[in-house]
């Protein structure tokens, strides 16, 4: 990700800000410029998602690209936000605990970095809504 591209998406990544169409009531994350349902009649406004959601499906990544190699194995999931949109994110939890339907909430984490001397990219990942006691 280039610095300007990250900067343009910064609010969306940090605070889960997407868009809401005041015409049809649909919510979008990441944000859209035009409502695909309403087209010209749509009226999109910025919308901050609460962040509560649930795991729709997930996978555990054991073999990752160079930038994420040191994080393996990690959980990558599709999260359905309470308001409707779905997004792909890491879920930070014990691998034995992850399951479809798991309730999650946002956590502010490092998403990656350009290089040792480059920009650090921050944003939202997800953690379980309830922390389970260790056995």
């Amino acid at each position, binding site marked *: 990700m280039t610095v300007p591209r990250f900067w343009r998406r*910064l*609010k969306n990544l*940090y*605070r889960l800000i997407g868009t809401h169409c005041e015409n049809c009531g649909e919510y979008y994350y990441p944000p859209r410029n035009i409502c695909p349902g309403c087209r010209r009649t749509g009226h999109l406004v910025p919308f*901050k998602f609460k962040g509560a959601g649930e795991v729709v499906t997930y996978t555990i990544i054991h073999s990752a690209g160079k930038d994420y*190699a*040191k*994080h393996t194995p990690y959980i990558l999931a599709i999260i359905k936000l309470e308001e409707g949109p779905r997004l792909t994110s890491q879920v*930070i939890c*014990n691998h034995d605990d992850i399951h479809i339907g798991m309730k999650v909430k946002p*956590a*502010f*984490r*490092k*998403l990656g970095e350009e290089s040792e001397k480059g920009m*650090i990219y*921050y944003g939202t*990942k997800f953690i379980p809504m309830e*922390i*389970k*006691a*260790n056995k």
Partner: protein
Amino acid sequence: MSVGIVSYGAYIPRYRIKVEEIAKVWGDDARIISEGLMVFEKSVPDMDEDTITIAVEAANNAIKRAGIDAERIEAVYTGSESHPYAVKPTSTVVAEAIGTNTNLTAADFEFACKAGTAAIQACMGLVGSGMIDLGMAIGSDVAQGAPGDALEYTAAAGGVAYIIGKDDQAAELESTYSFTSDTPDFWRREGMAYPEHGGRFTGEPAYFKHVTCAANGLLEKIGTKPSDYDYAVFHQPNGKFPTRVAKMLGFSKEQIKPGLVVPRLGNTYSGSCMMGLAATLDIAKPGERIFVTSFGSGAGSDAFSINVTDKIDDIRNGAPSVEQLLANPIYLNYAEYAKHKGKIKF
């Protein structure tokens, strides 16, 4: 009009490493170290956590606890000795992440372990003078300790954020007093991964001198004595130093007990004293009084006299307590800890 703490929030990563796990690697006697330092385990950041992510989580908890509108915050100051960037403020990321207005002043503070309390004092000045409505002061660190160094047993990760204002104070900051001198007890040169320290020199001429001078200075300034306080919190590089300095000043073990979190947490550097205060506010009742003295190597101490108000009961359960954040840790072995701390280079 007085200035006080309107809200506060803490954050502690979930991972821990026990002293015996570190001692096993370096051939040290874990029992002697644990009992000597009064530290049994320390927090470790996740692979994707750093001073900024910890500061943001603490700041979000502070906002959540009292239901603060982030746009009212007009100053964000983050104290740390492990800012991820040498040039590029931690505080701008925090401000953006919590959703403040862009009409704000922000800066990063650095004064070893007391940068966070220096940030509180700066916010007190801005709020007290009427320049701003609310100010946020954060102490956050992912502390560094070189492999095999004595610091490795205590250098931990955590952060605390305080929102300072005039209205709706949960605790009044009655007065503050500082003591500062050029004392080279601990330092880290630009570009170096780990700090250096003066060993035993960090005790008498550094920690004990500065903490006692600031604490006695404040007691004298406002005409109070240790028995006037229900609780006391001192900077906690380990459990031994705050316990000893409390005794030297005339505070009891009972007074420091609620805020002495270091045995299960380690030293969170800029977050250390502020975490002790957060743990104390978690259990303090309206009308009670708290005495706080931080310490930062280099060296200096900031002392505060704090009066808890009725408002504390309204905000107490709005965010996780320090006790809740300490619960359910995930223990790491030394290899996992080394990976989490970036001690293994890829």
